[in-house]
């Protein structure tokens, strides 16, 4: 499953955010994804793909940046 779909499904189940509004250019702040929820999304990827995220990563601001980060880690560690 691609990273954007995983993020959309997660936000739909946890925050009832309609998947069609989770677009690459959407800001995480505008979607009410706070630091705790972002940590939960990251954990979802870590858990699902057995990834380990470096602790000093720059926090993504948009859905597109989050997707790019997850895609990169999946390709490096997957």
């Amino acid at each position, binding site marked *: 499953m691609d990273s954007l779909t995983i993020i959309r499904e997660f936000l739909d189940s*946890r*925050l*009832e955010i309609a998947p069609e509004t989770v677009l690459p250019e959407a800001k995480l702040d505008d979607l*009410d994804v706070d630091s*705790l929820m972002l*940590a*939960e999304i990251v*954990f979802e990827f*870590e*858990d699902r793909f057995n990834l380990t995220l470096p602790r000093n990563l720059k926090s993504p601001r948009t859905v597109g940046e989050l997707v790019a980060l997850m895609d990169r880690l999946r390709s490096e560690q997957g």
Partner: protein
Amino acid sequence: MNRRRVAVTGLGLVSPYGGDSGDFFARLLAGESAIGFLRTEDVPRPLAMPFVACPGFSADAALGRALAGTLDRFAQLGVAAAFAAWDDAGFPRRAAAPDRESWGVTWGTALGGTLAYEKGYRDLWQRGRERLSPLSLILGLNNAANAQISIQLGLGGVSMSHTVACASSAIAIGEAFRRVRSGEAPVMVTGGSDAPQAYAVARAWEGLRVLASSDESGAPQSCRPFSVDRGGLVLGEGGAALVLEDWHHAIARGARIHGEILGYGTTCDHSHLVRPEAAGQQRALEQALADAGLTSGDIDYINAHGTATAEGDPVEVAALRAVFGERAARLPVSATKSMHGHQLGAAGAVEAIVTLLALRERALPPTANLADLDPACAGVDHVLTARRGHTLRAALSNSFAFGGSNAVLAFGAVA
């Protein structure tokens, strides 16, 4: 000290019957048991015990999915109860209100987020996972309910949890009462919640040999306080909340006043963790009466702690006899846990609501399943069926906890 009168302007609970506090009280008057049966398929041995659940409660519906997802079951029940009490008090949710910076929350929970911790243990040790979700810690916090109540209602004063076993929410209410009475806060949200159905928690209670046992068909009648054949308490989940308000503040905004908190007493037996002592309970009763400026002759009803344990019930009656003397035999007493079970950290708040509604509705709920009184529990006027139409002026609610902590709340009817 300039003492303010303390009104109760909001009542809210998550009821095992599914309705609001008025419906809850009506079911108790009717003698209707909320006790069902808990079955789980947990390893290594399935749970099967009488239990009071709130099957009609949907956290997503009551709180919204986003909020519900950040709370363990005990906190979901608590925040939902607080919302119900807040709405009942007629306050708008999250209105911009700078005056709320001194309004606060005190909350009781005996167990906190044990379901969340148990899930973590299972994930790590049973399922072999190596890490836990970031929310795991947040879900398990004992102060999760009061913190989220403060956040959701925009309350900037004290936000504190009280963990005092079965007296947790009675003590939370008492501490909130003191803050309103002293003028520290004009409005306090208070109450308690617990969800004791975690496998290890239920097994731990079972190990103490204080739980009623029965098969599923006998569960509704399995809790029999003061009865010679009583077999112990019935665990339950629940949440209950009150809004306490400075009397003049309530009058000024035209609030409906359900009743008044008149006094609060809290003591410790300082003798044993699980064996109660009448002397400590007696001191709590006397302290509550003195704090309220009442004498034993002013009390028209007592909602007993009455858990239906072998040791606890006669000790409580002995304490009542010691405080009320010759009048004890005419003192109406009932143990409503016989119907709504023991919600641990929520119990004191549930029973505070029952006591307030008894005063407001001039109706006394019964002790269910009391067909054969234990002679050791005699000497008070046990209410066996609902009584209506009595003039009720003041009443007490007892909460006596493991650890020897005792709490007694005194309530007054609105004239």
